[in-house]
């Protein structure tokens, strides 16, 4: 006999369901008067450093139809590449930028929109710099466990080519599923749950 290894098991995930808004964005779903505002709708205040950008996209199902009851959250570094988190040990992030946003898909168009700033570069474990990116977490009815992915930026070709995560993708044509397309100050990032253009999702 040996000593037992005493670890707990992570609580199993269950779908967020069609009414995820009640708990996460109640004002958006018409449930007003409980919380003054929905969390995650505002990521920056006036003095936040960095270039203002907009990220917009849709989550598409296996038929190519936009999902209208998804909830998307993003998490990203500030303009200097620092996270506004107690576990950030490299320095103090910009206090005017939360780094975290939450947006439900529009109930008609399925579109999500984030007003944010372009993140700086964050080092990988070995010190190499990762290309600027935004981490996304997607939940919805029919999604049993939240899906995690990243959006990189189409105007960062050189940094993307050297990114230690993107180089790990075996099927090179799939790298494009992680690149947001720039048009002016906006980046478009559609998330495909299935099909030829299925987005690369992470187990990370």
């Amino acid at each position, binding site marked *: 006999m040996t000593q037992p290894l005493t670890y707990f098991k992570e609580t199993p995930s269950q779908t967020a369901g069609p009414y995820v808004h*009640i708990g996460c964005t109640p004002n958006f779903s018409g449930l007003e008067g409980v*919380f003054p505002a929905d969390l995650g709708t505002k990521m920056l205040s006036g003095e936040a450093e960095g270039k203002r950008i907009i990220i917009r996209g849709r989550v598409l199902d296996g038929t190519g139809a936009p999902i209208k009851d998804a909830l998307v959250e993003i998490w990203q570094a500030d303009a200097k590449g620092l996270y506004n988190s107690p576990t950030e040990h490299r320095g103090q992030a910009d206090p005017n930028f939360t780094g975290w946003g939450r947006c439900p898909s529009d109930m008609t168009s399925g579109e999500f929109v984030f007003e944010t700033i372009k993140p700086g570069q964050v080092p990988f474990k070995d010190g190499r710099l990762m290309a600027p990116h935004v981490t996304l977490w997607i939940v919805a009815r029919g999604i049993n466990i939240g899906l995690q992915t990243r959006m990189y930026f189409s105007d960062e070709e050189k940094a993307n080519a050297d990114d230690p995560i993107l180089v790990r993708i075996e099927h090179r044509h799939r790298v494009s599923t992680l690149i947001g397309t720039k048009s002016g100050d906006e980046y478009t990032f559609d998330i495909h749950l299935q099909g030829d253009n299925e987005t690369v999702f992470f187990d*990370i």
Partner: protein
Amino acid sequence: MSNQKPETGAFFQRDRNWQPDAYTPKYKTSILRSPQKPLLSLDGTLSEITGPVFGHNILGELDNDLLLNFSKDGQTPVGERIVVHGRVLDERGVPVKGALIEFWQANAGGRYRHKKETYLAPLDPNFGGCGRTITDENGGYCFRTVKPGAYPWPNGVNDWRPAHIHFSLFGHGFSQRLITQMYFEGDPLIWMCPIVQSIGDKDAINQLIAPLDMASAIPMDSLAYKFDIILRGRRSTLFENRREGN
């Protein structure tokens, strides 16, 4: 208060045998919403090890009191009054303090207050159905509410959801993010539900079933259910990737 620095290790690999599969065809909506290609498995980087943390200043006094946070003229909702309490720990058993928990549920008749909801059971004018709290230094949390009703849903012709409360949790790192559902001890609908059955391991399902907790019930007032939640554990950074050690 502790003067320890925040931990900065990456998280344990997620046990994908314990967690539900993405593609679970008896839950029909999962068929077109499940990735078909392999996930890219990677050890966490700073982008996943860090995460947003919320201060108690976001909380209102009634945020964890669903009996009163939508009440009109002091009236409380119809239904069985319950307290739900527990602790948030990580896989090592370490309490996760300062974790934001959001919860939402149907009313005692099984009806959600949502503009897309069409079930014939009535809304309760004194029940909104959402709340939130932040765990204390020991990872503890509690809220009070009414026990939600079961309700039918369009999947099979006669599929019913067992009574449940939805939970959304933030730990200390973004890849601890979790949404799940709490079920109630003794409900026979649990074992018929295609959403519950998205989890393959019976012990994992049992982890979502809150026992009746008479020791925490309030005499002549409320019953109580205990629901502990486990988030991914964080590796120690001892010796990690450093020739010289720590």
